[in-house]
């Protein structure tokens, strides 16, 4: 038994490392779930004179999507968002992050605009309090404006039908 002890210890460490390696270090634990949406006061992308605040999230469930004209993966996600906007009643809020106003508008003009309202955040004033790491990133808020779900990366159609849509339907039944 004693002879095998070093090998057993080696195996235990090896297995622990093997399990740790399968975990994606980019998937950060989200500490902002169930927190109220961070306070902000930013302009609407298409209307520099319109100020937006967290008030806009009160009263209905929203899908909030962080995007930018510089973001390559956002091109991949865009058709899925267009599809959701065309077929669902969910309110879609865009956060145009670290972008140039004209470039952001142009990007949407070329591809179509799935958003009901777009928050323009060129200096991460809202992105940092939201804990945004990269784009695309999406959040779902409930009717009280509390963050209930965070999705990092591109939303695929299967993730939409399998996870996000059922959650939104459930949140819509909440008071």
């Amino acid at each position: 038994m004693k002879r095998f002890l070093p090998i057993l210890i080696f195996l235990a460490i090896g297995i622990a490392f093997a399990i740790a390696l399968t975990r994606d270090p980019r998937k950060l634990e989200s500490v902002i779930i169930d927190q109220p949406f961070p306070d902000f006061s930013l302009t609407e992308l298409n209307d520099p004179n319109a100020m937006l605040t967290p008030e806009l999230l009160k009263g209905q469930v929203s899908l909030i999507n962080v995007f930018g004209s510089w973001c390559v993966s956002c091109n991949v996600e865009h058709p899925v968002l267009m599809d959701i906007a065309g077929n669902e009643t969910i309110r879609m809020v865009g956060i145009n992050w670290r972008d140039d106003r004209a470039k952001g508008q142009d990007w949407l003009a070329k591809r179509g605009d799935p958003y009901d309202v777009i928050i323009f955040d060129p200096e991460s004033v809202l992105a940092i309090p939201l804990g945004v790491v990269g784009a695309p990133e999406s959040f779902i808020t409930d009717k009280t404006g509390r963050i209930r779900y965070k999705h990092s990366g591109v939303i695929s159609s299967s993730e939409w039908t399998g996870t996000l849509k059922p959650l939104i339907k459930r949140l819509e039944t909440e008071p």
Partner: protein
Amino acid sequence: MRYLLLFLMLMISPPAMAQEADIETRARKVSQSLRCVVCQNQSIDDSDAPLAADMRKLVRDRLKAGDSDAEVIAYMQERYGDYVLLKPPVQGNTYALWFLPFVLLIGGGVWFIRTGRRGEAS
């Protein structure tokens, strides 16, 4: 009159500049302890990533607004989790990380001495 104005400016600016410099050194120190979340093993002070630049700006703005260094770090931790701290905090899920090396060192030392003695005896 011009000299009076110059004199007044010289009188006023040093404390203001000292305060600016103080915020700057504190901002650097806080930034060095925060991880750039897009580059993983750099602090936001080291990183050229655009998000790191915005985070540095936010650190400075909060320090200027009167936050303590610890409050700024806590603010980031509330949003990005423990991951944003370059030095892992000593807490339940990191005890193994912090104390296992010492346990192994002491345990190994004890084992080495005990088996060594037995070898001598035989």
